[in-house]
């Protein structure tokens, strides 16, 4: 089984030995691997990312002998998440509050995408120009 975390568009493969799906429907990840993939650290004061910490009310629900429970992590941090334990993938997104403040800042979020030839382009490379962002599709 290939295990991975899909976090806001980025894919982090997980080693098989770091993942447990023993509890039905749950995915738990060894603390080291979890911290490396997600950038969140478990500290005495709670779950921390950079200077931000979120208190963990029920530490036993989050930290198990077979690892950090990903669904509980999502619930503690308020992140939208979908876990498909049978497929070994946990996907995390952006909270509505974070997305709203990103949009209200009016900063155009940077992205990096390939063209047909596979060459990648980032929006930020065109700083200094007036950019017309056109999303379209064949459908």
């Amino acid at each position: 089984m290939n295990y991975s975390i899909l976090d806001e568009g980025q894919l982090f493969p997980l080693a098989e030995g770091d993942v447990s799906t023993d509890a039905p429907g749950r995915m738990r990840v060894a603390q080291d691997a979890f911290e490396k993939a997600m950038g969140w650290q478990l500290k005495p004061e709670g779950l921390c990312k950079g200077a931000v910490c979120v208190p963990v009310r029920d530490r036993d629900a989050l930290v198990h002998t077979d690892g950090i429970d990903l669904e509980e992590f999502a619930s503690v941090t308020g992140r939208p998440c979908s876990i498909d334990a049978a497929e070994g993938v946990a996907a995390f997104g952006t909270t509505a509050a974070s997305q709203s403040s990103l949009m209200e800042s009016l900063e155009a979020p940077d992205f990096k995408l390939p063209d047909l030839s596979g060459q990648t382009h980032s929006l930020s490379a065109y700083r200094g120009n007036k950019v017309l962002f056109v999303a379209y599709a064949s459908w």
Partner: protein
Amino acid sequence: MPVWQALYEELGPHGFVPITVALDRREDVQPYIEAANPTHPSLIDEAHRTAELYHLLNVPTILWIDEAGMICRPHDSQYATDIFTAFHKKLSGPYLQMIRDWVHTGAGAMSADEIRANQPKPNADSQLARVERALAWHLLNAGRGAAAEPHFDRAAELAPKDWTIQRGSMPLRGGNAFGPEFFALAEKGKFNYGMEDLTPTHAPESAE
């Protein structure tokens, strides 16, 4: 798309770049890109990352970004040609002229308050729908099409008015985005974009 290329050739020397982003599988959009043969950035976003970042709800969606990287005109449903004007009732000419005016004089850029008032608003359901869609695409791309299905379904339930999810998933799930599924979706009620008339470019015969 050839229209954006022509506009790039006309306005590029004045500091203008169209960046077109296809919310598509590479193989589905390839013929369109090859036909237009663009020299401006013509990108492919299979994972719908820009739909997540910009909260895109349909195509086409156009945003203006100024020299400092700030959005200066938000989500606007506008067209480069009049091929589908009979359906959406919009004319491309006035909008293309607006772009020219913006590039030459800065006209058409909106105030911060106006922009915020006209942005679509994400909520918990729309954000979870993006996650489900991302997971569905990841599984499909990994050859796990059957496992992707419930996640596509869940995304569609959570975001009934998001056409990047509703209609954009049709070709991925073996459907036809121009077939009965599409018309059933369109008939469920007029799709409310929130800013459908940001720029009034409606053809005269549709004026009410």
